[in-house]
């Protein structure tokens, strides 16, 4: 067995954003494992300083191209809570629908563009278009439909337009919704095909008990509402999240890391599937059964299949929402106006896990203080802990293989690095 190992993966590819992996093993002991986040900090919370409340959603969506709707949603929830705005059931329905579309799009992008090449041992999806044209055609079609959901509700696939404080600026036409319904219905066969493919893909036998945190709400598979709840049976009051989730700066990374009262914890699809397993939709339950997935989930590589299982759930939820929308006949509603000012915390399950936006707004409607807790940063500590344990199981392998395996582990978390560099507590003077 090898005793010395020194790996430095510069500019990890097929992840969103810029990061390096550094591993140093001496005499069989892990000296150092780091996930360096080298993405330049963008200081989004500072950018918000002095801006009007109704610009916040527009600005904060731009934290991330992949999960813009999640940031928009968390941002709007924070503003609406701070300003005493109560949205209508129709607004909530449409936002949830856009949210389903985005989570689907994000999961599918990760599974097909970023993970699939690992499975086939190729550099990207491009060679697979030649070698596995049917698989890629299916993948692209699934992704197209998920983008369509975002486009019909939000106006485009990246950075939604129609979401605004107090309501929705655009109401989709009935025939658009009907078209979406038939397109989504047509995707289940394709998802099933993907499941049959992914469930046969062997994953490393790497189990490590872990704390998983996800939103929870009675009677639903919580993605848009609920209270952050741990697999260790405690919950985190939304307004007091900073008391439980402690963020800290590490000198080699522009993203902060975070710990819970119990130490390392993980958020994301695997945490949601684990914590809310029984609330998954029927098709998702069936898919989980077929994939042999059941709690407790302890292997981070299962995050990929958990994402696929969520795709079944999200598609089914989207169909349910469209049915309700078609029954109630949507109509244009005026935006609800702000009633008060103060602090508000918005919380949602972004594709990569629990996302917090926390704003303080003054009586002129100007934002004076902002903080965001972003799932990828929350996961960084967990990734490093997993890397430390995982690399020890690999020491007898050739270096190239180890490098490939550790990259695959980081990718399984689906880190979104552009997002994570904006984790910051900002206190404005």
């Amino acid at each position, binding site marked *: 067995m090898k005793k010395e190992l020194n790996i430095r993966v510069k500019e990890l590819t097929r992840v969103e954003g810029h990061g390096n992996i550094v591993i140093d093993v001496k005499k069989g002991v892990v000296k150092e494992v780091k996930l360096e986040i080298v993405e330049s*900090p963008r200081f989004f919370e500072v*950018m918000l300083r002095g801006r009007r409340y109704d610009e916040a959603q527009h600005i904060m969506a*731009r934290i991330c191209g992949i999960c813009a709707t999640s940031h928009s949603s968390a941002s709007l929830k924070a503003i609406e809570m701070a300003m005493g705005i109560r949205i209508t059931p129709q607004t909530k329905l449409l936002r949830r629908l856009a949210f389903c579309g985005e989570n689907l799009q994000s999961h599918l992008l990760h599974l097909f563009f970023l993970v699939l*090449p690992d499975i086939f041992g190729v550099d990207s999806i491009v060679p697979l278009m030649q070698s596995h044209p049917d698989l890629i055609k299916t993948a692209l079609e699934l992704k197209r439909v998920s983008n369509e959901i975002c486009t019909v509700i939000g106006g485009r696939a990246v950075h939604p337009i129609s979401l605004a404080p107090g309501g929705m600026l655009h109401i989709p036409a009935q025939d658009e919704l009907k078209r979406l319904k038939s397109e989504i219905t047509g995707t289940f066969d394709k998802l099933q095909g993907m499941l049959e493919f992914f469930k046969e893909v062997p994953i490393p036998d790497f189990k490590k008990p872990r704390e998983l945190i996800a939103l929870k709400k009675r009677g639903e598979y919580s993605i848009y509402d609920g209270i952050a709840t741990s697999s260790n049976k405690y919950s985190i009051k939304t307004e007091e999240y900073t008391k439980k989730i402690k963020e800290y700066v590490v000198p080699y990374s522009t993203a902060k890391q975070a710990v819970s009262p119990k130490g390392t914890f993980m958020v994301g699809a695997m945490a949601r599937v684990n914590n809310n397993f029984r609330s998954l939709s029927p098709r998702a339950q069936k898919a989980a059964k077929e994939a042999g997935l059941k709690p407790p989930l302890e292997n981070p590589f299962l995050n990929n299949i958990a994402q696929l299982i969520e795709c079944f759930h999200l598609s089914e939820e989207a169909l349910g929402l469209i049915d309700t929308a078609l029954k109630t006949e949507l109509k244009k509603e005026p935006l609800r106006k702000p009633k008060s000012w103060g602090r508000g915390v918005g919380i949602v399950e972004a594709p990569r896990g629990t996302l917090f936006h926390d704003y303080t707004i003054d009586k002129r409607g100007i934002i004076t203080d902002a903080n965001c807790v972003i799932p990828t940063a929350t996961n960084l500590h967990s990734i490093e802990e997993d890397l430390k344990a995982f690399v020890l199981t690999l020491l007898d392998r050739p270096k190239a293989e180890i490098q490939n395996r550790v990259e695959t582990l980081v990718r399984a978390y689906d880190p979104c690095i552009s997002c994570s560099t904006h984790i*910051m507590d900002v206190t404005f003077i």
Partner: protein
Amino acid sequence: MPYSKRYKVAFFSMTSCEGCQLLVLSCENELPDILTHVNIVYFREAMSEKSTDYDIAFIEGSATTAKEVRKLRKIRKQAKIVITLGACSSTGGLNRLKNRFKIDDLKESVYGKEALGSQAFDTKRVRAVDEIIEVDHHLHGCPISKEEFLKSFNDLLLGLKPHAPNYPVCTDCKIAGNVCVFKKGETCLGPVTRAGCSAVCVTYGSICWGCRGFVDAPNIAAHTETLQRHGMKKEEALSFLSLYSTGLTGKKEKKIVR
């Protein structure tokens, strides 16, 4: 370059949300066709291959670190054609909002006092790509317009110069058949913003936020007055106009792209 040659295309990303790259990846119907005409040799978000031999470089994101500035100069040396992808690279985009503050104040308020000595947090004033290197064509917008991207790509393959519109979003908005935002009692940056987006934001019920940057020689004074006439205080109007801190493109832009 003659059409018969297969272009080698690279996508680079600086400080950004990578949403414009994502929009490229969301050309699900067109991607297979595109790939029959060009070789994509660098696209970190989607592929592991890392090539330094390319003809066309698409650059997303603004320059905010010394490393990014060096990388941009290297790209310019290698690439025959440099195209900016989206607001962050074309004008600096929303990232520029950061420039309102002193860098040390930002670092300290965000990461704490200990961050002041750390290189990891080193960041400069946000700059657009054409403030550092020459840019052959700008694809504006936050995010870019898929149609404009595909059209420009097509033009390049045909050996044509891509064309950036130099008329305001109002023109697009009229073509789209929208009711004027000002008529609805709201305010908008459409009259001074470069078109090319089909006024999609107004079509979907919102306003023009100015993400594509100003048209050449915009009458900012007149528009500030217009905004004031529609109920904004002067500071509010200026703050609104500064959201994308636009008007800064074209510094080193080649004449040919107009």
